């Protein structure tokens, strides 16, 4: 019974195995990035950037249909230019990054949807907006795995300057020049992982597997290493349970995954060991010293 529900779909169907592999790769790359987005108070920036990718991917679609490489390439270009632009604007004018990014939000979405509709059907549009992780081919899976690997390698390189830049930017400036390159590399990783999420979950939900697991992790750990572990784990679990849910109930896979993550988030807000609501209501008796 439990076996039928939880394991059999993955043994019986190749597309389910592939989806599972894809979702785990997404979790490995995206969740740690999400943790940094959260700690730098850039979660909404990530969301806005996810939208900025759409017109780029749509232009790719316009030229070559649902072609993996064209859409990846277009998305990367659009994402990078927006990230760079927003970074420049905020560095030059002292306007916070999120303010300048918010403007891209609606424009990009409208532009992207328009471009896709010019050539595609409504099915294509749904595919672009919500992804279709169950229909991933080998190539897409490889691209996702490749991006996740790149992410982990680069993150390992820039980890220390990135952390110091978050905590004490002036200190980093006085000891090293690594601050600005690390920040740019980080923005690049955000874009890469958004494009990754775009293939599986579509524009509208791509950022979900980055931001929600990070939010979950914050309620269970006080230190950043722990947060990243928990974020990856909860992203992978959401992916797995979401696929099962989608298989059993015919809920589309992307929304199913995000809904599971959201449910885990609610549980964490309530019962998390670090400032969860229940913890705050019933803190236990105070200690001696």
């Amino acid at each position: 019974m439990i076996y039928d529900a939880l394991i059999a779909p993955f043994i019986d169907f190749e597309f389910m195995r592939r989806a599972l592999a894809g979702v785990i790769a997404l979790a490995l790359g995206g969740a740690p990035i999400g943790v940094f987005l959260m700690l730098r108070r850039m979660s909404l920036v990530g969301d806005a950037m996810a939208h900025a990718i759409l017109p780029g991917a749509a232009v790719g679609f316009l030229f070559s249909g649902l072609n993996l490489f064209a859409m990846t390439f277009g998305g990367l270009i659009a994402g990078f230019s927006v990230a760079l632009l927003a970074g420049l604007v905020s560095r030059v004018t002292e306007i916070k990054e999120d303010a300048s990014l918010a403007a891209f939000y609606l424009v990009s979405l409208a532009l992207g949807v328009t471009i896709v509709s010019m050539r595609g059907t409504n099915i294509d549009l749904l595919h672009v907006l919500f992804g279709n992780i169950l229909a991933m081919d080998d190539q897409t899976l490889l691209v996702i795995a490749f991006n996740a690997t790149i992410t982990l390698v680069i993150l390992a390189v820039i980890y220390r300057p990135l952390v110091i830049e978050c905590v004490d930017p002036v200190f980093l400036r006085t000891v090293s020049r690594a601050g600005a390159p690390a920040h740019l590399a980080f923005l690049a990783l955000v874009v890469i992982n958004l494009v990754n999420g775009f293939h599986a979950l579509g524009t509208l939900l791509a950022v979900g597997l980055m931001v929600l697991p990070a939010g979950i992790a914050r309620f269970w750990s006080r230190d950043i290493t722990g947060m990243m572990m928990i974020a990856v784990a909860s992203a992978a679990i959401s992916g797995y349970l979401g696929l099962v849910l989608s298989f059993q109930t015919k809920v589309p896979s992307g929304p199913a995954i995000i809904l599971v993550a959201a449910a885990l988030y609610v549980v964490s807000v309530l019962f998390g060991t670090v400032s969860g609501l229940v913890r705050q209501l019933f803190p236990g008796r105070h200690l001696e010293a």
Partner: protein
Amino acid sequence: MTAQLKFSNVTLGYDRHPAVHHLNGEIAAGSLLAIVGPNGAGKSTLFRGIVGILKPLAGTIGLGDLKPREIAYLPQSVDIDRTFPISVFDFVGTGLWRSTGLFGGLGKKAGRQIADALAAVGLNGFENRTIGTLSGGQMQRMLFARVLLQDARVIVLDEPFNAIDAKTSADLIGLVRHWHAERRTVLAALHDMDLVRANFPETLLLARGAVAWGATSQVLTADNLLEARRMCEAFDDGAHACAIDAARPRAA
């Protein structure tokens, strides 16, 4: 005595307004120098210039063979994100940046160094606390521990004893004296004249320019302090371009 820092006609400021105006002078290697002056005198600005996060509007600050990144700097108001989930141990460990660099892990030796630094500032037992849980004074002790680990030849402290109790500031002053004994160059901006008289052999009285500079007892006279206080704090938006540079074109 060789000069560690050399100011040649340095002007530092913001938006063309000078906050430190045409400063000349040298700081010998191994000196223990207090920098005093009223609010807005330009002490913090001078420090930002020394550590290279503010470019001089004119003139130069010579560091000899030293690189700006080899100076340990404790700013007046630290821009630390205290909500960031990092432990006191890891935070202080960032002081080892020069030896670990980008990658180097914190090995056994580094672990011992960090523990020693924390013990030196009286923070044993705080290793695993996150930085957001420290009190103001404990935070300051932690920042001193990081400066300690930076093992720098020049140490710049901007009002390090603000809002610090007597016991803690006595401890930290002990550390400063220890650095002096190790022949490091230490500069500190301070407002407590008794503390300066008791611990700092040399003083620079700054009020946009140097009002007096030399042995502490000769600098901190009533006349000099009055003179410094007369300095006007506000920038004048209608000010003309400074004439000194025009009269003496940048030939040097």
